[in-house]
């Protein structure tokens, strides 16, 4: 009977075109508003690396001064002192410290130099974050240790410099040094860019242009291309002064073999802090902690209160639209009372009438969903105008596309429950007499 009810539902759309158009539009606007904000919310709050998000941890070693108020969260960044010590301790399956570097690339044959954004990382960075390669691969651990001049290029940057050609083994002058290209990433843009959330407004932006070994950046005295926070008197002059100071500018990630190792690692981190306290450092070091990927995203407020508020308002608007649709469906189904009476007289049970009109509400919902889909694309386009960050995530994907249709149908069915219940309560004898 579903096919029959569906056919009747399609036919009923034509019966009261104005009422139908109002219902479809009401639902479409409600669905489009909520789904466009939900699309952004989902992209912002999604797990960017679900296969290992529970065993990848940011390590926060709190080196704030003793007078830091209680309840203050630990610093997001680490000092080089702590990053170096943790790297040397070698705990965890994989580990990397990283900091942002910037400078100039001087490609051969190019008319001018190019500004590049880079990240100084350890070789473990690539397997830790499941970074895909189009050509070549990461540099070796040995290159890591000696501070080699290997570089990995992003897909976009490699294409800009070398076109479709495989540049592996080619030389490239960046940051005033000659580097050898060991690999080119395949297109890779985790949403959000969880591995480097701090020190910029590029949380949903593109991957860095280049990745160079951390030790090379240190040896090259590459200054941090981002926030450097210092407490107390600040660092001694010069790059070495920065490295030996309590200034924080590094991020430290560790990958554990499984989530259960977290406690053990936390204990080792505690032991490290105690050791440093004995040396007169880390007066509030007991606040140091590990955060997995999701915790880290919450901590960094990736979602933002505005996005959540916007989503709640949009859902509220959808509710208003559903309530309006209830009224419109009541009007529509009331106009069908005569037909319901006839159907009941001809043998339809109340259940069959209920099913028929619920399917009819669902058909209105499906129509609303299709129109709403178009409006959702429009809504996303408008949202993308808000900021570059939102623009990066305001894209429809197949899951949200299907969800848009499903939400419209479910909303219409929910809106149709009361009118349908009233429809199946129609007393046929009265309707047949008044026909």
């Amino acid at each position, binding site marked *: 009977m579903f096919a029959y009810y569906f056919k009747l539902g399609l036919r009923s759309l034509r019966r009261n075109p104005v009422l139908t158009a109002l219902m479809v539009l009401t639902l479409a606007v409600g669905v489009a508003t909520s789904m466009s904000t939900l699309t952004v919310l989902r992209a912002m709050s999604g797990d960017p690396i679900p296969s290992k998000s529970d065993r990848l941890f940011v390590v926060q070693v709190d080196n704030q001064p003793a007078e830091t108020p209680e309840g203050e969260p630990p610093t997001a960044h680490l000092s080089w002192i702590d990053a170096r010590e943790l790297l040397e301790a070698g705990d965890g399956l994989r580990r990397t410290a990283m900091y942002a570097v910037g400078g100039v690339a001087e490609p051969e044959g190019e008319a001018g130099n190019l500004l590049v954004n880079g990240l100084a990382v350890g070789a473990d960075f690539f397997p830790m974050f499941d970074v895909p390669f189009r050509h070549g691969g990461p540099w070796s651990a040995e290159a890591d240790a000696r501070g080699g001049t290997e570089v990995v290029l992003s897909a976009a940057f490699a294409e800009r410099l070398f076109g479709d050609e495989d540049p592996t083994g080619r030389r490239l002058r960046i940051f005033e040094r000659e580097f050898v290209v060991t690999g080119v990433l395949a297109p890779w843009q985790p949403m959000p860019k969880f591995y480097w959330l701090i020190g910029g407004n590029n949380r949903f932006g593109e991957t860095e242009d280049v990745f160079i070994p951390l030790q090379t950046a240190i040896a090259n005295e590459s200054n941090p291309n981002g926030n450097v926070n210092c407490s107390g008197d600040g660092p001694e002059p010069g790059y070495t002064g920065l490295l030996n100071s309590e200034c924080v500018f590094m991020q430290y990630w560790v990958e554990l073999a499984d989530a259960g190792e977290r406690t053990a690692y936390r204990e080792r981190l505690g032991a490290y802090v105690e050791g440093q306290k004995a040396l007169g450092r880390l007066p509030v070091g007991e606040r140091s902690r590990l955060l997995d990927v999701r915790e880290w995203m919450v901590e960094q407020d990736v979602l933002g209160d505005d996005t959540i508020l916007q989503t709640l308002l949009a859902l509220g608007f959808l509710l208003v639209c559903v309530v309006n649709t209830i009224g419109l469906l009541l009007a529509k189904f009331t106009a069908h009372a005569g037909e319901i009476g006839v159907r009941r007289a001809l043998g339809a049970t109340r259940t069959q009438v209920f099913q028929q009109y619920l399917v009819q509400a669902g058909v209105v919902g499906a129509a609303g969903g299709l129109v709403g889909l178009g409006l959702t694309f429009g809504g996303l386009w408008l949202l993308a105008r808000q900021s570059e960050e939102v623009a990066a995530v305001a894209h429809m994907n197949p899951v949200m596309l299907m969800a848009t249709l499903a939400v419209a149908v479910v909303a219409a069915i929910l809106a149709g429950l009361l009118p349908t219940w009233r429809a199946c309560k129609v007393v046929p004898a009265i309707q*047949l007499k008044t026909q």
Partner: protein
Amino acid sequence: MLRMNHLSKVYRTHMIETHALRGFDIHVKEGEFVAVTGPSGSGKTTFLNIAGLLEEFTDGTYLLDGVEVRGLNDDQRSRLRNEKIGFIFQGFNLIPDLNLFDNVDVPLRYRGLNAAERKRRIDDSLGKVGLGSRSKHFPSELSGGQQQRVAIARALAGSPRLLLADEPTGNLDTQMARGVMELLEQINAEGTTIVMVTHDPELAARAARNVHIVDGQVSDLVHPAQPVRPVAVATAASAR
């Protein structure tokens, strides 16, 4: 086919109690053509609604084709209605946005018949009322008489044992009414029991038996050859 004994129907509001039928007795035999007459408000429509299982009654018994109707739930009544009863209404009650084929299809859908069987029945019944070639037309494209024929085809498609007609010619001119009446007589001649409510004495006279209702009671049961004569005490025994 249809037997009601001491049946009553009371409509109650918080202030008023209206006795639409009281001590109502009637027995319609299989294959009969019974005309039900009576003044407005006498209970004819209430009787027809109860007979068609569209309304419940307050007291008494009602046997439809041997089935005791009291105690059946809504689903059971709907199924019984679908299987045993065909309706013809004064206002035709066709569904305007369905074509003739789909209108006749409605009761068959609820019967759960397969597509081939439904098509066969629809073609047969539309053919029987002379509208086989117009199955794709919509009700608004037909005259009143043709619409009533479609309603008859819809009632016949389910092969009902009992046809209930409420003023079937009330909205038709004399010529169309005659045509519809001839069709009903033909259907009756083929074995279908017909109970027809009418105000028209000429139509009533064409039925095999007349039942006159006054104040919710059967006033007299007479053959059309005899004059309709109200009596003080209602009795169904005289009809048996």
